[in-house]
């Protein structure tokens, strides 16, 4: 089994606000091993970004509260001091953000930004760092790298900017790479290229990748394992095949059901999960998905633990009280996986 790089246990992140304590992340646990791509999926507000940003210590503020641990090669990131984190960020664990135009400094040349990343952790000359930066830019597919290193971010197209971010993130060969919706701001053709880039480079460097996205197509393309988050909790976890072919949680069925399929006629209305995600301040007791779930029953008032419920798939965990046989029956809607008849609407 590959070396386990990151072990997150019962991570909780909450923010004290005027309206009360917002529980952005409640009891999330997962691991990331060398060379694997773990996708975290969920809608906006599910807690996926907060989870990964907490790994980098970027959610720390006077009103944030943390519990649980996140051990990177044994060292806990949640309780680490700022100095320790400054050492780790960029070097052991690096992040690519969603919108490269706002995530790169507008007043600094692109090469200089990569140089800054390198020299933040390595004591080498600017010239040597620049050479490395240029080489990295070449490797991520930026043509004329030496010239382009002197350009500013606004002089690049979206895809090229994201490649710069990737080059910067991988410049010190981190063990874990976090990609927070790196392709959301790009058009689909560029998206495919960037995904290839990420996949190839992380395979070369043998890093563990955490890929945050709301796009199941991307998940199918790139992930080895998938974590499904809802209202700050992990509701399902498994390999990509398990999640796509044998999903165990109604929310996952809803997600899969809302993807329009190329092999069918387009629906009159796009299928959607009816309702809204719950408030994270006053989380209802029991299963958070209950108000929107057509399969809910009285047991659902009790929060289901995240546990494996299929003997043949011990790594496949979910939070649903329904019996597995029941699940297989209920998730077949109009000949495909979906949440309910009305959600399918085709």
């Amino acid at each position, binding site marked *: 089994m590959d070396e386990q790089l990151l072990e997150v246990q019962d991570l909780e992140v909450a923010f004290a606000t005027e309206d009360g304590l917002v529980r952005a992340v409640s009891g999330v646990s997962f691991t990331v091993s060398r060379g694997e791509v773990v996708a975290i999926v969920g809608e906006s507000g599910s807690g996926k970004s907060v989870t990964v940003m907490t790994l980098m210590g970027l959610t720390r503020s006077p009103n944030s509260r943390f519990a649980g641990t996140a051990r990177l090669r044994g060292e806990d990131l949640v309780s680490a001091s700022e100095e320790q984190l400054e050492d780790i960020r960029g070097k052991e664990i690096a992040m690519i953000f969603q919108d490269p135009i706002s995530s*790169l400094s*507008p007043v600094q040349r692109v090469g200089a930004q990569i140089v*800054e990343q390198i020299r933040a952790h390595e004591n080498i000359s600017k010239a040597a760092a620049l050479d490395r930066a240029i080489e990295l830019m070449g490797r991520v597919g930026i043509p004329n790298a030496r010239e382009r290193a002197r350009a500013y971010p*606004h002089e690049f197209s979206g895809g090229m900017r994201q490649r710069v971010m990737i080059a910067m993130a991988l410049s010190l060969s981190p063990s874990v790479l976090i990609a927070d919706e790196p392709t959301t701001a790009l058009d689909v053709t560029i998206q495919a290229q960037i995904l290839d880039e990420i996949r190839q480079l992380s395979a070369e460097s043998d890093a563990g990748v955490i890929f945050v996205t709301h796009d199941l197509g991307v998940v199918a393309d790139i992930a080895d394992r998938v974590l499904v988050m809802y209202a700050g909790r992990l509701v399902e976890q498994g390999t990509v095949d398990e999640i796509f072919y044998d999903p165990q949680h109604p929310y996952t069925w809803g997600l899969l059901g809302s993807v329009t399929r190329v092999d069918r006629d387009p629906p009159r209305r796009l299928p959607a999960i009816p309702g809204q995600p719950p408030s994270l301040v006053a989380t209802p007791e029991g299963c958070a998905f209950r108000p929107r779930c057509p399969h809910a029953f009285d047991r659902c008032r009790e929060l289901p633990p995240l546990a494996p419920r299929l003997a043949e798939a011990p790594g496949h965990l979910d939070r649903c009280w329904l019996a597995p046989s029941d699940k297989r029956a209920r998730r077949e809607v109009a000949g495909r996986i979906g949440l309910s008849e009305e959600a399918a609407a085709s």
Partner: protein
Amino acid sequence: MSRFIARRAFSAILLLFATSVVVFGIFEVIPSYNPARAIAGRNATPTTVAQVSEKFGFDKPIYVQYGNTMKLIFTGQIIDYSDNLNVVQQFGQRFPVTASLVVPAAILWMVVAIVLGSLSALRPGRLMDRGLMVAAIVGVSIPVFLLAAVLLYLFAFKLPWFPNTGYTQFGSNPAQWAYHLILPWIAIAALSIGFYSRVLRSSALDVANQDFVRTARAKGLSERQVFVRHVLRNSLMPIVTLFGLDFAALLGGAALVTETVFNLPGIGQYEAQAIGNLDVPPIMVGAMFTAFFVVLFSALSDVVYALLDPRIRLTG
């Protein structure tokens, strides 16, 4: 760049023209304005007044008067009505004094404002931040004559730490030059420090929330590096623009109250006297002088802006 300069030079000419016309026009409208009378003196007879009027051309149509005045200004021959001094020469002599007052005060206030504004932005809501807010309100509200007078009273009279008034040339005795100017420098700087530091503070807090600052932190840079290299550099734009205008106005003599209170023979003092006497020539020259600096410094601050932010292309 040359197009930029050409366009700015052209707008300078237009502005100077407009300024001169407006100032000249104002005096035509003032009811009690009678320059011939003022020049001739209190006890002058009507004949004398008429003679003065003819000599100075006050009986000619206004546009002729305007033309004459402009000609005199640009040939450097214009005389003021109160003391018969050559206005342009006076400006030339007095400018170093004003510059000695304004330039070091400006450096002082900018440095202090950047430091205090940064410290406030780093710890918003804390004591330093709130203290600065009070200082800013005081600085904006307090009339400069009051501040200057209080400083003079406390530190030159009550506690004889500083000399009363007057100006020593830099060439003759640099130490004395500075010694005489310290209180005036404080008077000028005190007014602007509060305001500029608050502007920097809000600008820095805005920038600090931007995504690229998060990226800088994610690279493993220390908070100090993140602040200085990323936040501060991107927050300077507003104060650069404000400074250009403030500095230009001060060089043109806007510190007239300070110069008067501390008896510094600068341009402001000259202009203040001229205003009191309704003496048109120095006022005209002063207004145009200031207008010139305003155009110059707003062009310079645009250039600095473009240097700070590569996304900006210089336009006319």
